[in-house]
């Protein structure tokens, strides 16, 4: 009788004890996965927003922006001055704002709709990738054609990579997320490198 009671008791304790190691392992896993996620997330966003640095003397640097030629066949470089900054992200952002503003040369054409806005921009220094996160205006106001799409993507990629040695590839995001395409044609799921062949005369 006593023995049976004891067995019963043991069984009961067993039941509660069975769950515990599972919980410990689960908790440990969540802890590790969570910290890894946090590490990944914050190691990528090096500089997102820094207080505006006011240059005492306005130093500028010359950059080469890529716009479309009149036939929408190739990209052509146009020189611009942008404010120099110790903050690389800020410089790239200014370059992109100039790109969105469009070309000054009447024979060239814009590659990005004027309504396009950049939500955020961040650099992965280890992989040398610039992530350019546009609002969905870039899709909404896109030309809608394959040619327009190719020119949009490569004008952004070439303009950034061509002027910043720190960047080797550009990945375009839309509304903070990876997108399949800009307007239904070109693959945006992989980062884009500098394209020599799309530049006129090369």
């Amino acid at each position, binding site marked *: 009788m006593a023995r049976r009671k*004891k067995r019963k008791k*043991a069984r009961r*304790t*067993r039941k509660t*004890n*069975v769950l515990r*190691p*599972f919980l410990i*392992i689960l908790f440990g896993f969540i802890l590790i996965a969570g910290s890894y996620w946090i590490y990944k997330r914050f190691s990528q966003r090096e500089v997102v927003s820094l207080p505006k640095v006011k240059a005492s003397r306005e130093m500028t640097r010359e950059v080469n922006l890529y716009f*479309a*030629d*009149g*036939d*929408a*066949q190739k990209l052509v470089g146009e020189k611009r001055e942008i404010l120099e900054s110790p903050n690389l992200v800020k410089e790239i952002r200014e370059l992109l704002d100039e790109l969105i503003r469009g070309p000054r040369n009447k024979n060239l*054409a*814009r*590659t990005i*709709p004027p309504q396009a806005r950049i939500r955020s921009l961040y650099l992965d220094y280890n992989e040398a990738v610039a992530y350019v996160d546009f609002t969905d205006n870039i899709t909404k106001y896109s*030309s*809608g*054609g*394959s*040619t*327009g799409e*190719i*020119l949009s993507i*490569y004008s952004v990629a070439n303009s950034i990579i061509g002027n910043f040695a720190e960047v080797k590839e550009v990945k375009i995001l839309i509304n903070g997320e990876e997108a*399949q*395409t800009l307007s*239904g*044609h*070109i*693959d*945006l*799921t*992989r980062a*884009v*490198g500098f*394209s*020599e*062949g*799309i530049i006129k005369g090369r």
Partner: protein
Amino acid sequence: MAPGCNSRRLHQIKMKKLAIVLFLLLISSIWLSTAQAETVTVLIDGKKHTDNFFIYNLEGKDYVSLADTRDLLNLSVSWNAVAQRVVIESQKGKISFLVNNPRVVVKEKIRYLNYPARLFNGGIIVPMEFLTEIMPEILDCRIDWDLAGRCLQVTSKGKVIIGDKEDNPAVKLSSRDFKKGASDKTGSYLRKKRKSSTSKSYRIDLVVIDPGHGGRDPGAIGRKGLKEKDVVLDIANRLSKKLKQKGIKVILTRSRDEFIPLDERTAIANRNRADLFLSIHANAAFTRRANGFETYYVSEAVDDHARAVAAIENSVLELERKGVRKKMDDTLHAILWDLAYTEFRVESIEWGEIVQQELNRKIRGENRGVKPGPFYVLKGAQMPSLLVEVGFISNVVEENRLRKSSYREKITEALADSILRYKRLYEKKAGFTR
């Protein structure tokens, strides 16, 4: 019993439980990563083969390791890591295939597997159907897989070329005797079935036509409001009718105004094992002056093939260095994608040139040529594939032309002729090599 003793026992039980749980976790994680490997009996001409032979069960399908198969059947297998191409050779012929691609070239004939060969635990595994249906083509034997009995039987035809190397035909083969050939009903049935369903010679019979955009996605819109999705749907429907008259089977990804996701479009072509895939679009750019027609084939980037090649070479080096597992998977993934991009490059370009020639002959506007691009719509198509931009809807003159039924008819004729011309060229070439 003393209470102290009791608590010690409880503690022991606790530890035991923990150990069991950890063990189970370990087992399950191993199981998850390696799927199920099972040793099966192999009978070579009725004799039991001594080496262990493993069958892997992945997603409910039986696979065997290519290395094991090679050892079992004394074959020569070569593996090109850059191209991911496997070539199996015997005196009777050659089998070649790509990893993750269901297309298999057997003695210069194309066949399709239901499931492609895969990379698994650092080796190549092939589905059971490959062993039983494809391999015997280049062997003097047949291979049967007894699903219920979990037993693989290799049966020689006349001469014994495998297993015991002595020349003794007609070993007790029980009910599955095959030596006199003709009497075996299942054998001939299988071969007949193979000829009609899986065997495919170099022919172009089925074309998948994909009118771009549709439904909530209008595509490009002209200044006067002409929508790309309507123009291309009309051209696709006309083209479909025209090709059917010429005896070519056509599948449209959409035959009305509906939204089809991009992945689904090539998936339709792959599922139906189409011989050609043509996506029809109308172009646009911010430059209103831009006009003309152009044809795109899929590639890594808009130009630099050299860069793509360099990337592959780098990733192969990295593979050899054996970096972190994740990195390796990434590189493998990249290589496999590049294959998907490049496998039909030559065929696609050839066909693209013909499309441009035909369009140039029949419609006005600038011939903008055949160009490469990383097109999501063409990604992963397992056949020659093109995206044709029939004109700029953003150009007012071309928008007006695209509105006209007669102009659309001309485009349709050009596209139909390009497919027929390419069909003749392709089949003539294939006939030459056969």
